[in-house]
């Protein structure tokens, strides 16, 4: 296997708030190969979005990356100056956001916004820039792209605006795209269209993707590997099918088991007790222990990632029995 295009080692991003230090990302590591799609799954407050922003060096005050390494195509991003980092963003690594209504500037045409994104990295003639922009719009499935360049965002539907945002992210053929729940705000029928298209785009262009989502079903049909986040760290990672069929971390197992599809209609669902912990007052040791029915005294210490084959988990008492899979 070739070198990973993106390699994250022990990334820590903390927010220094009035109420205390919020360890939003606390020791995240993963590798991403060319053209690979990794699903980064977690609930709200698990640190998945902050991880995404950290990869691009876009953490707003009072947060900052306190340690760890993000290597993109061999370059250490955390060591770059602001302007060096800027020249990478949008060029080698770009990002798509959840709410397509909020991401585009309502006062500028699609063409102007795409032109700005092109000019940020390349000197192109007006004509070349326009044809590049139109080409990308066509690629993401926007008909009569040349005319649409002169349209304003409000003239597009939500799904179409998200396609525009994707086109902007793809303008410079980045090696990695970080996608932060880009289909959550869209209708299922539009979501399906976009998921399908993104998968093809990744395959065609060799762009690797970090697909952030709270929805296991979405990433399971898209990503070839998964990382499950809980309380600022990855608690389990591995190839999608293996991980979903045979989860080792009790949290992953609980998440899968709690899906309505996993129980017969009308019967009680398997539920994870308790609530997601506040990142300000994390318990010592394994953060999942208070909600975990397998927890013992051992869990008062913090488990390290156990690696086996191409997967890993952070648990002293991993689930070993293969989960029963109803047809």
């Amino acid at each position, binding site marked *: 296997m070739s070198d990973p295009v993106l390699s994250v080692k022990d990334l820590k991003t903390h927010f220094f708030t009035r109420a205390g230090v919020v360890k939003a990302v606390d020791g995240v590591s993963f590798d991403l190969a060319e053209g690979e799609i990794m699903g980064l799954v977690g609930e709200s407050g698990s640190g998945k979005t902050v991880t995404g922003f950290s990869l691009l060096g876009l953490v707003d005050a009072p947060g900052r990356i306190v340690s760890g390494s993000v290597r993109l195509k061999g370059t250490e991003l955390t060591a770059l100056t602001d302007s060096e980092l800027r020249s990478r963003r949008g060029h080698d690594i770009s990002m798509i956001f959840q709410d397509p209504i909020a991401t585009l500037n309502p006062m500028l045409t699609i063409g102007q916004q795409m032109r700005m994104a092109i000019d940020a990295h390349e000197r192109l003639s007006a004509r070349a820039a326009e044809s590049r922009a139109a080409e990308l719009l066509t690629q993401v499935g926007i008909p009569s792209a040349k005319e649409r360049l002169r349209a304003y965002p409000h003239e597009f539907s939500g799904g179409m605006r998200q396609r525009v945002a994707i086109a902007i992210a793809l303008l410079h053929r980045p090696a990695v795209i970080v996608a932060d729940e880009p289909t959550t705000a869209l209708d*299922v029928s539009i979501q399906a269209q976009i998921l399908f298209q993104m998968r093809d785009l990744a395959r065609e262009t060799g762009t690797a993707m970090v697909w952030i989502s709270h929805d296991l079903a979405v990433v399971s049909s898209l990503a070839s590997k998964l990382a499950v986040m809980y309380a600022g760290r990855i608690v389990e990672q591995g190839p999608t099918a293996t991980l979903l069929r045979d989860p080792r971390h009790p949290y992953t197992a609980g998440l899968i088991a709690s*899906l309505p599809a996993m129980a017969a209609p009308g019967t009680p669902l398997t539920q994870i007790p308790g609530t997601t912990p506040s990142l300000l007052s994390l318990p010592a040791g394994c953060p999942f222990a208070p909600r975990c029915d397998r927890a013992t005294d051992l869990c008062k210490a913090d488990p390290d990632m156990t690696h086996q084959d191409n997967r890993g988990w952070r648990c002293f008492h991993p689930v070993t029995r293969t989960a029963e899979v109803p047809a």
Partner: protein
Amino acid sequence: MSSFLSIDNVSRLFGPNLTTGEKIAAKLGSKVETRSVRAVSDVSLSVRKGETLGLVGESGCGKSTLGRLIAGILPPTSGSVTIDGKPVMESGTKVTTRVQTVFQDPFASLDPRMKVGDTVAEGPIAHGLTTKGAARDYVAGWFERVGLDPVWADRYPHQFSGGQRQRIAIARALAMQPDVLICDEPVASLDVSIQAQIINLFLELTRDLELTCVFISHDLSVVQHVSDRVAVMYLGRIVELGPVAEVFGTPAHPYTSALFGSVPKLVLDADELVHFETIDGEVPSPLSPPSGCYYHPRCPLASAQCSAQQPATQPVAELRAVACHHFEQQLAKASA
């Protein structure tokens, strides 16, 4: 089938509210949107006592509006909603407490400046279900019922997590001792691990209290799990209705089929990536819906008849109905 909750030919229009200037401009020949939106169009449903009816569809299909019409929050433009033969609204005002609502976002549905216990007690006191003096115990009972510690009644909403807030919202609705509960996307804004808790609570309560329910959700798997029957909406109309297993198992409407096909499912065994069955195009603007069957521009089975004539709702099997000219063709495809 004895109907407990009846929705008869209910429609709701949202007017365009033109300004005087726009009216003049329209007269001068300028293009101005003048059509009103028919958010819910001639919907009839009947729900048996103790039954849970799921209401599914994409955003803008009118499922939330229909929920509000049933709950007596919005008055219908025409048609009526009755519970056990008695109307929910009379001349634009809600006249019953027998139907209560659980809203989508528990962060917005609780008054941030009121102690949660007071929020729960408010309605029952106003309607004589309890007294000011007895309210504490009354609320405590409902708190326990929904799995909350009664001592939390003196706290404010911001001190609770999303799941706990949704429990409070459920307690508020149930404290009014309703017969009918409208749940408008009650788990959509909750974390996955919390969703299961609330769904379980919902199943337990509807069974124990013999509640009749309308459960609105865009998440088909949730609806599939909690409902007895399901109604599928598209652009303000109900396109298909029937028992959950049958509707999702062998969809009689091409839209139901496509909607179900485009929902990402948890793929456990595929090392090769799944193929999505996607619907082409987007939901048309409700301001200018297509002619005939609203779904025909996106429908693979569409014929000339579909663009000319709106399909009537017709029975398919026992308890099942569909509004499609080509449902037999669709059924054949689905069972194949």
